[in-house]
């Protein structure tokens, strides 16, 4: 198996040292940044109270799962805990196939000459921006705490 692509554009340069030097710099930068965060954030990682099996209540989720905890409040569990998360992950996994199979057909129908990448595509671009915006909004809502309540059609107002 070759380790280089067949064709290179005219504007090319040697990988060494141009493509090499950023990595040691990034490594040192990451070590220093994480070290400073570990020092400054010691109070945030104290273990707190020990767990004992069987305790009940609501724990604070880690930031990357806040959206999932918030999503649960917005609709029937079948949709919010299964359909949307699994659908989102499945869409991500097969996105290249969807984009290459459905995209060109849609482009022909719309009279477009080609099916651009999301960066230049008002349909897929808007779809992904909206998707990520919802994730960010749910996360921020969860971080804001239970003080912020919104009117909602499913089982009345919901709070963060």
């Amino acid at each position, binding site marked *: 198996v070759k380790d280089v692509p067949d064709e290179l554009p005219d504007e090319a340069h040697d990988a*060494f040292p141009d493509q090499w030097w950023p990595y040691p710099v990034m490594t040192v930068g990451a070590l220093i940044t994480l070290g400073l965060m570990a020092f400054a954030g010691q109070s945030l990682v104290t273990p707190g109270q020990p767990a004992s099996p069987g*305790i009940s209540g609501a724990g604070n989720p*880690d930031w990357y*799962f806040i959206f999932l905890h918030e999503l649960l409040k917005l609709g029937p569990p079948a949709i919010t805990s299964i359909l949307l998360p699994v659908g989102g*992950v499945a869409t991500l996994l097969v996105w290249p196939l969807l984009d290459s199979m459905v995209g060109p057909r849609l482009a022909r129908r719309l009279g477009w000459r080609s099916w651009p*990448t999301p960066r230049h595509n008002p349909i897929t671009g808007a779809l992904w921006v909206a998707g990520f915006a919802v994730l960010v909004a749910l996360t921020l809502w969860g971080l804001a705490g239970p003080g912020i309540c919104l009117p909602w059609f499913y089982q009345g107002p919901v709070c963060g």
Partner: protein
Amino acid sequence: MKPSNAVEWLDQRVPFLDAIQAARDRRVPDYATAFHRYLGGMAVILLGIEGLTGLLLTVYYVPDGAGNPAPAFTSISQIQDTVPLGWLVRGMHYWGAGALLMVLLFHMIAVLWTGGYRAPREVNWTIGVVLLLLVVAFALTGSLLPWNVNAYLARTTEIQIASGESVFPAAVSKQIKFLLQSGAVIGPATLLRFYVAHVILLPAVTGGLLYLHLKLVRRHGPAEPS
């Protein structure tokens, strides 16, 4: 520069000098120096830091959730408060995990936005998404290990979600739950299960897929800007 006798001796048995020379002689398109092209490399660096700090944490961590307070909890408290520089290693591991997830998300968004997933890179995109899911699994399994109240309660909710408690028939949900937590409630067996996944299973799978991902990245070269 002429390699020393020791290097030559090693190269004759485990060839590596040609690979280094090929990597040095490689030419890359100018557009490969764009900032967002380094996010994947940054993720690999953070993964390395997570591996190293995680290895150091295993020296003192005791994956035992029996008793109150359990050895798992007391060993974390010991790492944090007593072990020399334990706070630093644990802090770097904790914040590094968050940074890794953030960098991976930005990496994925950049690839998605610029069309870097398009032919011939479709399979590598899918491998990348699986790697992101594996890192989420790393974070999920790792966050139970301190065995404190908050970790316990948050993981309880997430296991309820994953088992489809209020969606699937009770028998199905119960089986999924048993598979994840090895019992009716999260207990010492769950902690051990998560620990094994965190330090053996997930690193092995992630290592293999990461090798494949990087091999394909090198094979295809940097994607042309859209």
